């Protein structure tokens, strides 16, 4: 395995190019604060969707508690930066670690459950986290946590998104990722082949929760203010919808899904009374005509192995 292949160099160049281009456009004022707000929402949704895709799309564990990991990250970073005056990097690190610790704790008892039972258990977990937030006066209870410093900027957002995509897509392609996919395909056969299924299910939860925690930190430190209701059951459903819309088991699908659904949702803010109706109709049409999601389980490749532009959609 060569790391410095043409393909990887081109990808790196493209990643940096987009970064500096957006930085430049924001500085000259072409990207205004409204577009910036939407970019933050899209970025956070990409992180949430890609990390949930690892749990649900690749490992096949149906989770309805992803917003709870985001909540833990948001509150952890909020407490670190607003209450304890720590720099953002400490906030993000504590957010990611505490969310993944929660993933471990929830994973050990619940991952013996399968399918619908696991979904209900994770749903319950999400409600517990919300209620803890509502009843804890230190973090403001139902009023929420205020005066969180705004540290989230383009640099933090962009590189968190890139790191999430990079780490999760490489994990999925690795030996360990193959084991996770085999669990989704057939848990009993995977076990019979010697795959330690419990270990990999928990590992998927821990990694997924880690990135959801980062997304929470980015959220808290952009919007100044968080309250428990933001991270309720509906938020988990929103993330799941992005994953299903984009295609379970496709990283590019999750990215495409997050971008399209976030853009549609912000565009529809002009018609508040019809917003949820139109949103629902779009989802309905996609599920009827393309039930496997926009990308299915395929990936979109910009560069081929030799580094030429390919633009191919492939399954590997």
């Amino acid at each position, binding site marked *: 395995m060569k790391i410095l292949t043409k393909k990887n160099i081109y990808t790196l160049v493209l990643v940096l190019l987009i970064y500096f281009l957006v930085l430049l456009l924001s500085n000259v004022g072409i990207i205004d604060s409204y577009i910036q707000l939407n970019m933050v929402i899209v970025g956070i949704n990409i992180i949430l969707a890609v990390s949930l895709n690892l749990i649900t799309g690749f490992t096949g564990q149906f989770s309805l508690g992803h917003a709870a990991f985001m909540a833990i990250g948001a509150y952890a970073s909020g407490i670190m930066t607003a209450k304890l005056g720590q720099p953002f990097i400490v906030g993000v690190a504590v957010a990611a670690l505490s969310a993944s610790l929660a993933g471990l704790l929830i994973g050990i008892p619940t991952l013996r459950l399968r399918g619908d039972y696991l979904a209900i258990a994770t749903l319950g977990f999400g409600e517990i986290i919300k209620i803890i937030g509502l009843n804890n006066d230190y973090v403001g209870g139902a009023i929420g946590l205020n005066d969180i410093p705004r540290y989230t900027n383009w640099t933090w957002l962009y590189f968190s998104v890139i790191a999430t995509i990079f780490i999760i897509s490489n994990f999925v392609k690795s030996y360990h990722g193959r*084991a996770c996919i085999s669990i989704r395909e057939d848990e009993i*056969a995977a076990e019979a082949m010697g*795959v330690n299924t419990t270990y990999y299910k928990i590992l998927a939860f821990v990694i997924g929760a880690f990135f959801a925690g980062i997304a929470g930190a980015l959220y808290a430190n952009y919007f100044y203010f968080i309250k428990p209701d933001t991270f309720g059951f509906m938020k988990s459903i929103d993330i799941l919808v992005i994953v299903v819309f984009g295609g379970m088991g496709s990283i590019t699908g999750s990215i495409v899904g997050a971008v399209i659904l976030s853009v549609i949702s912000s565009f529809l803010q002009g018609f508040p009374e019809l917003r949820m109706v139109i949103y629902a109709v779009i989802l309905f049409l996609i599920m009827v005509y393309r039930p496997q999601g926009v990308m299915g389980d395929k990936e979109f490749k910009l560069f081929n192995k030799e580094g030429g532009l390919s633009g191919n959609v492939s399954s590997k």
Partner: protein
Amino acid sequence: MLEIKNLNVFYGGIHALKDISLKVNSGEIVTLIGSNGSGKTTTLRTISGLEKAKSGEILYENQNIVGIQASDIVKMGISHVPEGRRIFGTMSVLENLEIGAYARTDKENIKKDIKKVFELFPILYERRSQNAINLSGGEQQMLAIGRALLSRPKLLLLDEPSMGLAPMIVKEIFEIIKNINNSGTTIMLVEQNAKMALLNADRAYIIKNGRIELEGKANDLLNNELVKKAYLGG
């Protein structure tokens, strides 16, 4: 090689295996025959650690393996081809085989062993990059066996390899099982197709309602009046 002593397995309140005892010697093909729900699959699943035994012993190379995790039993050299093939549908044939070698630590030999499996099943080589779901039933069974062989088992557990296959293909599969056995792998075979199983095995056990009813040389059982009447349709 494998000796089961007074094994009892329960599914909730249902007593699935009642004091089962049986033995598999090194190099043999031993078959376990019985009708639906008699406990054949449960026996195999308990050996490979997918089911927990309530009491009794499973001695494999003189070590009791009851309670050891399925993933560790594979590493000890027991490989299980589950009932209904259970291949990984959206993975390619090659990826399925690679998962078969998952538990191994000698990574450098895996490629060689995959080549051997392709020699045993040339059709799998032709289809190596196709998704496994697109294979025919017989090809899927070959893939399931090939996948199990990649963990380099000393003991191969086969659960109804003839299930849902045309008679011609069943014959082919049994020939392959013989070949695998001749190259030194001990085989324990569970079957409903009693005739094919008895024709190809060295020894056989007949299980009914979770108890071993009869045991003996496969040839003797093939001519046993009781067996003929109950399992061979004559």
